């Protein structure tokens, strides 16, 4: 077996272990005292599995590094996978401190969604373009991912806090927004489900379209609902597109990405509706009773602590190391590229979070909502800025 297949096996192993660990964390629901030092048996198994899973993912990372010759953080697949790993690491660190099994039940699924989402992007090892050939690649990118992973924990915990604290007996603005957040998670799951299904069937439809003066082709791996702007279907015996992607969608392969988005929303919605039909109440309301043994204050504290720990790490990786590298590679440390601007937006947002919390007394729900928005900004920078706004950082 060569290194690369060891690497991908290790990643699979990690994923499966996280999945099993989640169930064991789930089994700790019956442990009544959440801050009891003596942990139940299942809690011990769960954290052990998580650590083994993390080590397996470390094996993936190292073997991939050796076989490609560069740190595996150079494209969307590699970066997102690493972000999932950073999230798990953040969880393990906080677990060591707070011994909260419950956190695992929420943190691991989020990490798994991110890793599964990552594997939807091309997974081949690709060579580095000259601008990426630098040690700063792994110094900058790993620090950013670590910072974002730790900040991600504040999202996980903030979400737990809201699920626990938002009054589900009456319909309110808060229940609606919370349900929207749950729905967005379903859309990510929808994306993974639909992409995996059609990949499994090896679906392919090719379009030809004009790009500037030359003709280009694009391969759809999902049936085309939205064709590329000005594109014609070349492949026969596949579904005809329903409409064209509007011209104002910018960037490379805008049509295909838009089509994938439509499919993700449809699939996510279907899964969500089926879930609601079975549950016959809001998803948030279903999860709420599971959290009744949690102390709200402790959740609030962990959420704040992960921002307090993650913020300096993010600043270091996302702004300082980023600037140093930009100065070396491009001759300017700051150039208002969309990715840079959104890193600044993230930084300003968490700076506002900290000021509101420390000086204006925004605790509890207010601060939890902010943690959710903060992670939303991080994901926006990761997904929308890379795929839609396109700039110097569009490597995927």
């Amino acid at each position, binding site marked *: 077996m060569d290194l690369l297949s060891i690497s991908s096996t290790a990643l699979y192993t990690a994923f499966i272990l996280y999945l099993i660990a989640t169930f064991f964390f789930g089994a700790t629901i019956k442990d009544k005292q959440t801050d009891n030092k003596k942990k139940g048996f299942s809690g011990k198994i769960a954290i052990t599995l998580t650590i083994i899973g993390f080590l397996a993912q470390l094996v993936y990372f190292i073997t991939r590094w050796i076989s490609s*010759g560069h740190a595996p953080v150079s494209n969307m697949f590699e970066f997102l996978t690493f972000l999932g790993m950073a999230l798990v690491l953040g969880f393990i660190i906080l677990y060591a401190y*707070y011994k909260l099994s419950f956190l695992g039940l929420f943190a691991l699924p989020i990490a798994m969604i991110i890793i599964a989402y990552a594997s939807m992007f*091309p997974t*081949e*090892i*690709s*060579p*580095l*373009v*000259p*601008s990426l*050939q*630098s040690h*700063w690649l792994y110094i900058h990118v790993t620090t950013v991912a670590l910072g974002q992973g730790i900040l991600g924990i504040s999202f996980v915990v903030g979400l737990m806090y809201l699920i626990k604290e938002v009054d589900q007996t009456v319909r309110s603005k808060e229940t609606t927004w919370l349900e929207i957040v749950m729905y967005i998670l379903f859309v990510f799951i929808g994306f993974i489900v639909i992409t995996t299904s059609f990949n499994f069937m090896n679906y392919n439809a090719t379009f030809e379209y004009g790009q*500037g003066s030359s003709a280009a082709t694009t391969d759809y791996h999902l049936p085309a609902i939205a064709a590329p702007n000005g594109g014609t279907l070349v492949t026969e015996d596949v579904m005809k597109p329903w409409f064209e992607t509007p011209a*104002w969608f910018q960037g490379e392969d805008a049509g295909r990405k838009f089509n994938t988005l439509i499919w993700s929303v449809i699939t996510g919605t279907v899964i969500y509706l089926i879930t609601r039909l079975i549950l016959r109440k809001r998803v948030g309301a279903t999860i709420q009773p599971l959290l009744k043994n949690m*102390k709200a*204050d*402790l959740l609030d*504290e962990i959420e*704040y*602590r992960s921002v*307090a*720990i993650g*913020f*300096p790490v993010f*600043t*270091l990786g996302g702004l*300082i190391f980023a*600037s140093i590298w930009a*100065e*070396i*590679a*491009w*001759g*300017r*440390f700051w*150039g*208002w*590229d*969309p990715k840079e*601007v*959104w890193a600044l*937006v993230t930084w*300003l*947002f968490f*700076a*506002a979070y900290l*000021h*509101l919390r*420390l*000086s*204006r007394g925004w*605790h*509890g729900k*207010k*601060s939890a909502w902010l943690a959710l928005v903060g992670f939303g900004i991080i994901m926006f920078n990761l997904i929308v*800025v890379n795929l839609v*706004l396109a*700039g110097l950082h569009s490597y995927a």
Partner: protein
Amino acid sequence: MKQIKCDCGHVNPLGTVLCESCGKPIEENQHIDGNEGKKLLNMRYDGTARRSKTYTKSVVDRIWSFFSSVKVGVWLIVLALIASMIGTIFPQEMYIPANTPNRDPAVFYESQYGVLGLIYYQLGLHNLYSSWWYLLLIALIGVSLVICSLDRFVPLFRALRHQNPKKHQSFLSRQRLYSETESATDEELETVKKQLKKRRYNIKEKDGYLLAEKGRFSRWGPYVNHIGLIIILIAAILRSTPLFFMNEYVWVREGETEVLPGTNGEYYVENKDFIFETHDENDERFKDALSKEGMVASNYQTDVVVYKANRSIPGEEPELEPVVEDSIQMNKPLSFDGYDLIQSGYQLNEFSSMTFKIHETSDADEKSLGSFTVDLRNPQPEFDLGNGFKVVLDQFYPDYYLDDNGIPASETNFPRNPAFVFSVYSEDSEKPEVSFVGIGRNIDGTGENKYKLGIEDFEMHDVSGLTFKYDRSLPFFGIGAVIFMIGVIQGMYWQHRRIWIHKRKDGSLVMAAHTNKNWFGLKKDIETVTENTNIKMVEDQQELGEKDN
């Protein structure tokens, strides 16, 4: 200056909320920190007198209070955040793609994004980050940083330096963590003290009152990081002056030497060779990716020699003396004498010269009747071939294309796709024959030309684009960033923990505690130090009672 005297005898400055010495709430000032009617005291700045909350009459006072408000600070941050987001909706002017048909912003935004693009352009959002209002916003954040920090740092520093362990009961009982133990022995108190010392608390005692404190320096974190940010903003101002920052761009053809702009002709650079390499398609590791993505560049490199010009008399043709000879690659800029040269662009395969021959139109073998070479960098107007033929260069299009009206034009001034209009004079005709020649085109002006021109040979070169700059503000940015990181780590990774213990004469004991963050950790500390004693664990009064969310 008016002062307030507390019951304990301590004289406090006007505007004090909690007595600097005993911590007793000063009745008339409780509204300042919103303590009225609340069980718990707001300990944010230890109840010290802040200028912004004390003096609010004069204009200066009002400006001071305005900028020292965290609310205003957060609003400024949020506005800067929203403005920054808006700037990424459409590309900024400098990021208009190079391959766009018309890069003029007046045309680009409307043609690409319709009405929204037009509005974006007309509002000046295409240069948002250098607009006066964006810069003003950043400047206001700077002002807020300075005033906020001064307003709070000075009184807080005073208060924390001279802490009196002897606190008033109303101060202790209104802390978030509090407990009363009916009776505690001196031995138990000693155990606690020993445990506290073991956990690296500093202990101060006075009249049966005890203060255990640790991590006070973390309270200075915010002020340290604000200093770092202020240095960064100052560095940004410095960078906008030519003394600190210069940025130029120079294109150099292979084999040529160009003067480096911005040095008053002091430095020259020679491009000895431009190297463009791609990843090996047969590389086992990257095979899959390369077959999908196609060619991927692996190296952009310019081998350069930098010269310093020596002129004995100003204006004289300089003598060039080599300073440094090196290769510049992406991520490996060349530094010399405080300047940097950075690999920033390239153009492959420009034409240096083209050689044409004349032959008879009817000759199938195209036998040459004479030839001439056009130097595309500096084309001669006329070529005398010596054997009766004379060729005049009427038009030269370095980068030929047909414009919207179908008229030949040149897209750039770079000889990437040269085309020519020649007039050929020969002995057997008085009138010249007109020919249009380009790559892959050879058009006869009249359709009756006797002689035809053909491309016989050509030479090509690459051009390298180099950024040439100095940035003397970088050390300031570096210092600012380091100070910011120190401050933020100091403030975030450590906590200021204080525990007050008072053993009353009747043997009862009260304990109160405060921290600026991580209450969980403080509770754990107290749990450990009171282990094996009868001293009651503190109760979290916030958890039980009010919650200000």
